[in-house]
């Protein structure tokens, strides 16, 4: 029993658990759409690319979350601009932007003379989360979840069949832009918790696990949140006892949950389960 309760005694761990729960809810809510729209590459580029904003903000003495948000928005705008070039696939543009911003972040941070380590941003420092960070994350996270709830029908329609969505009045490009903005918010919230490298884990793995179990989108979102929160809490608890890196431990727990659910649901996905009715 002590094994379960010990981690909660210190205040820094309580703050860490609250931060982990917030990202455990918000990342899968947004990540559900990242998975369904096959935008994992964009999520990866966005999470890595925000390192540039983090480094510049740190060098300028500005809140790193503001820098991360700024970098996320700049990446989103550049992506929209460059994606109109039909000679290059969107995946190519995403990768070029993500790696360029990531490289800029590494260069800036490596030249800082403040004792800050690159690994703090890459893998997060959830144990140093402050109450001000938690309030900011709670505000941004609540806004993101409310936007997804309000846009749920249009997101579903624009994702499943963008042609029909346009025909019945959905502004598909606007929906896409909002989703990219939400992605930037998730990256900002994840920064201190799991870091820029592991953000993609909570964004993609819980919804991917949920996808294996769910019959519809509501179920997928609910399962995604359940997995996200569970994996964040269990991962943090394990990292406390194993003295391992919290972000990476959460990532491993998420991957293990995916592997278990994938194995358990394998028979259900066999071809004979998809017989036509007639």
């Amino acid at each position, binding site marked *: 029993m002590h094994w379960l309760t010990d981690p909660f005694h210190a205040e820094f761990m309580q703050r860490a658990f609250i931060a982990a729960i917030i990202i455990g809810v918000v990342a899968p809510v947004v990540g559900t759409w990242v998975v*369904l729209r096959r935008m994992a590459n964009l999520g990866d580029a966005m999470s890595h690319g925000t390192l540039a904003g983090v480094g510049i903000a740190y060098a300028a003495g500005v809140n790193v979350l503001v820098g991360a948000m700024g970098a996320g928005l700049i990446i989103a705008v550049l992506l929209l601009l460059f994606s109109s070039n039909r000679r290059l696939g969107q995946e190519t543009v995403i990768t070029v932007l993500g790696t360029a911003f990531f490289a800029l972040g590494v260069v800036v941070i490596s030249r800082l003379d403040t004792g800050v380590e690159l690994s703090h941003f890459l893998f997060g420092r959830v144990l140093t989360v402050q109450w001000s960070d938690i309030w900011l994350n709670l505000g941004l996270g609540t806004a993101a979840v409310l936007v997804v709830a*309000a*846009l749920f*029908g*249009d997101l*579903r*329609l624009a*994702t*499943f*069949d963008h*042609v*029909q*969505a*346009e*025909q*019945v*009045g*959905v*502004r598909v490009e606007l929906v896409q832009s909002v989703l990219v903005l939400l992605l930037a918010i998730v990256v900002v919230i994840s920064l201190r918790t799991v870091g820029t490298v592991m953000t993609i884990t909570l964004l993609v793995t819980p919804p991917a696990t949920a*996808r294996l179990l*769910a*019959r*519809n*989108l509501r*179920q*997928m979102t609910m399962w995604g949140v359940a997995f996200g929160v569970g994996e964040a809490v269990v991962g943090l608890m394990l990292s406390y006892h194993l003295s391992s890196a919290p972000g990476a431990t959460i990532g491993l727990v998420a991957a293990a949950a995916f592997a278990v659910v994938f194995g358990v649901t394998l028979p259900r996905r066999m071809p004979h389960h*998809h*017989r*036509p*009715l*007639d």
Partner: protein
Amino acid sequence: MSTPPVLEVSDLGVHYGQRHALHGVSFAIGKGELIAVIGPNGAGKSTMFKAICGLVNHDGVVEVNGVHCHDHTDRMDLAYIPQRNDSDLNFPITVGELVLAGRRRFHRWYARPTSADRAAAAEALDRVRLGGTEHRALTEFSGGQLQRAYVARALAQEASVVLLDEALSGVDQPGTLELIEVFEGLAAQGTTLLVATHDLALARRRFNRCLAVNGTLRADGAPAAVLSAEALDATFGSGGRSALAD
């Protein structure tokens, strides 16, 4: 045509850079017509449908129920059902949710479907003989049933013209016949349907008008006339007659 046309197309053209995919297409269609759109692969059938629905830039004029269409909002009386492989059938959406999507045109982005919307969706499923399947997943449906579900979505949308691209491809014989019966029933109730198809024999037997397309409108009229040997040669080239024989 005694009643005003529900769809009128004048000098419709589409070009991609210097290449003309379609040019000079003009026709008018009345309420409740069941029309086969025929032509070889790459003839511009899909392009024509997309242009009519405003999904690609085009020249010429499209009028729906007498309204000159400028953007999507003017075209909500049209429903376009693309080829089957265009959508992800593993997407976690039920048949009921698919059909309910047609009701979106009547609401703002933040509104939730009402009980009246659900009733309209259920009625649309009944009309295509899929009543009671609201909770089924799309993966549980055969090709013909899927096409009927998409038509139900168009009916829930209250579209007066439904354009179906290759709706009969990959559908087995019983499924095709059931689909055609549904089309005939809907046409009798006043819905206008344009169906792009490669099945010329079916076009001759079960449709009341044919549009032959190959870069432009090659022929327009009763199936017997459009599917004559000369008209087929004009549309398909020298292989036209054998296409009908197949």
